[in-house]
């Protein structure tokens, strides 16, 4: 009898010395911190955010200042460029056709990419989550409307829609606001909120008949409280992952539109916050791709690095929040 009691106590004793319980979120956080690729991605993103914020302090020259007679200088370490000119130490990555510092312009370009990555996401999150929760929880007409709207937006290939919007509305007041960025934000949000709303709707549909929701309703919680306190926290994982993966897509879109000449309008106003974007820099450099290739290398590598960074963080978040999927893709 006593022996049996001892053997029963043994496992209980073991349990008390095990590690303190961790919440789901801190568990995910620790998994994320162990993921080296995700950390590297986060460092890249933080680096470019810092560059974007402190651009005036970091940039060695005013990105708009034209140095007469110093057009198309090669990078500083080149002693004889294709046009016979030598690089100068004050222009580390050379100059463009007008004699503006290439490095400074690339640094200022980070601002546009970062803003395009983060601002539309905020709009998409607010609209997408609200609509998704309402459609999933209330059902009925809201749900129908959302699904039909989604069908229409899905039918229109994304990039084609952006190109049409940016071409058609470029000369309207909204197209000129903030050098065209406002229009770009609007277009990105219109296309992307539907995907998020559908994701949230699906999650809510699978959760709303669960016991904890019934229990909340039983004790008299309002619909708003159930949606925000009980349903939303349970959808956060997929929302975070899909958001992280949508950011690089938007950055690429901006770069592509800039490269086609219908993105941000390069500004000549010294007080403007957004002076040029990597896409526009690539467009400028494209004309001289054979001889003055250095104009393209820096913005091209920057776009690639930022997108790579966001993809690594997205992969890490997915693995951290849903360990069952880890390593399958």
């Amino acid at each position, binding site marked *: 009898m006593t022996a049996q009691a001892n053997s029963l106590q043994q496992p209980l004793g073991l349990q008390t010395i095990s590690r303190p319980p961790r919440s789901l979120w801190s568990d995910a956080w620790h998994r994320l911190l162990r993921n080296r690729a995700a950390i590297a991605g986060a460092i890249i993103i933080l680096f470019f955010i810092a560059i974007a914020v402190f651009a005036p302090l970091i940039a060695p020259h005013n990105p708009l200042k034209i140095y007469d007679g110093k057009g198309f200088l090669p990078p500083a370490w080149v002693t004889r460029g294709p046009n016979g000119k030598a690089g100068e130490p004050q222009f580390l990555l050379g100059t463009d056709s007008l004699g503006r510092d290439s490095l400074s312009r690339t640094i200022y370009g980070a601002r546009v990419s970062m803003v395009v990555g983060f601002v539309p996401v905020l709009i998409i999150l607010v609209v997408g989550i609200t609509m998704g929760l309402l459609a999933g929880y209330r059902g009925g007409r809201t749900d129908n409307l959302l699904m039909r709207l989604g069908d229409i937006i899905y039918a229109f290939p994304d*990039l084609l829609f952006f190109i*049409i919007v940016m071409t058609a509305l470029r000369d309207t007041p909204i197209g000129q606001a903030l050098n065209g960025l406002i229009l770009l934000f609007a277009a990105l949000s219109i296309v992307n909120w539907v995907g998020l709303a559908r994701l949230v709707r699906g999650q809510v549909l699978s959760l709303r008949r669960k016991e904890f929701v019934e229990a909340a309703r039983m004790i008299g919680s309002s619909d708003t409280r159930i949606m925000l306190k009980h349903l939303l926290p349970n959808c956060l994982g997929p929302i975070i992952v899909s958001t992280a993966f949508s950011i690089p897509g938007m950055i690429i879109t901006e770069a592509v539109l800039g490269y086609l000449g219908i993105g941000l309008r390069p500004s000549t106003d010294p007080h403007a916050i957004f002076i040029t974007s990597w896409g526009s820099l690539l467009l400028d450099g494209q004309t001289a*791709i054979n001889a003055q290739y250095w104009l393209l290398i820096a913005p091209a590598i920057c776009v690639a690095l930022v997108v790579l960074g966001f993809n690594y963080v997205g992969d890490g978040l997915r693995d951290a929040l849903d360990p069952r999927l880890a390593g399958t893709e």
Partner: protein
Amino acid sequence: MTTYIVRRLLWLIPVIFFVSLITFTLMHATPGGPWDRDPSARQVDARTQELLNSRFGLDKPWFINISGGNPLDSQFLNYLWGLVHLDLGPSYRQRGLDVQAILFKPSEGKPFFDSKFGYSARLGLLALGLAVVFGIPFGIIAALNRNTIIDYITLFLSTIGISVPNFVLGILLIIVFAGQLKIIKIVQANWSAPGAWFIPAIILGFNTFAYITRLTRSTMLEVMQQDYIRTARAKGLANRVVVIRHMLRNALIPVVTIMGPALAGLVTGSFIIESMFAFPGMGRQYVMSIQNRDYSMIMGTTLIFALLIAVANLTVDVIYGFLDPRIKVGD
């Protein structure tokens, strides 16, 4: 199955309707008319503008004619009526040419595949072909050698391929191969030489290649753990037979599903790659129409691209239903 295909085909009608409605509305919301927006050219005087407007039907109301006469005689409805007859209307910039003639008609005495559409289609198919032919074996080899150096190199390459936008990759490759090593020419004078096609096709298809590699690898890894693979090995089948007959067949099904999005990616990728290499295809024509603000060209080409993508998605869904009996698409 037939009902399903018919239903999906009928769904194309509202898709095309909404795409043309949105495009039409946006194009007409543009301030100014199509004639007064070319600052480099001589400005068109008022009388000529009037004549041009009436010739192209731009003096008619947008959607519904409420000012008397035939209520259906509006710009949008006329455009839709033209669509039904496969008539995309005249180009505003290239006078005397219809949109469909610019896109689909080859120059005198040339076969159909020498039209702008034909050039783009050939480039797209070559890119897709390269992506499949290299992507699937890479994925298989990586999965069979899991966690070895081969696997890591493949994963690294495909991560880069997915992350780096293809125009950035194109720029870097041009700088290296054309600018520095001088192996290829950037501006090909002559696209009849088959060798000239490979660099643009590789760049265009690289993203697709990376997706196919990753997907083949991950589905192969999943299939390798299935019971029927153990059974096949227990029967004493040769490794080659197990891999090809049992694994590959099942691992390839998910690869089919990404063909729809892959084609959409090839279409949108073609705008940039074709412009970059001055390739005489539809994508470059589209970018040029955007720069010239040739509205009827932009509308017509957008519709054709949208239709292409919708048809590709439909085809993939139908093929998927045939390939995987577990999936009943008819329901």
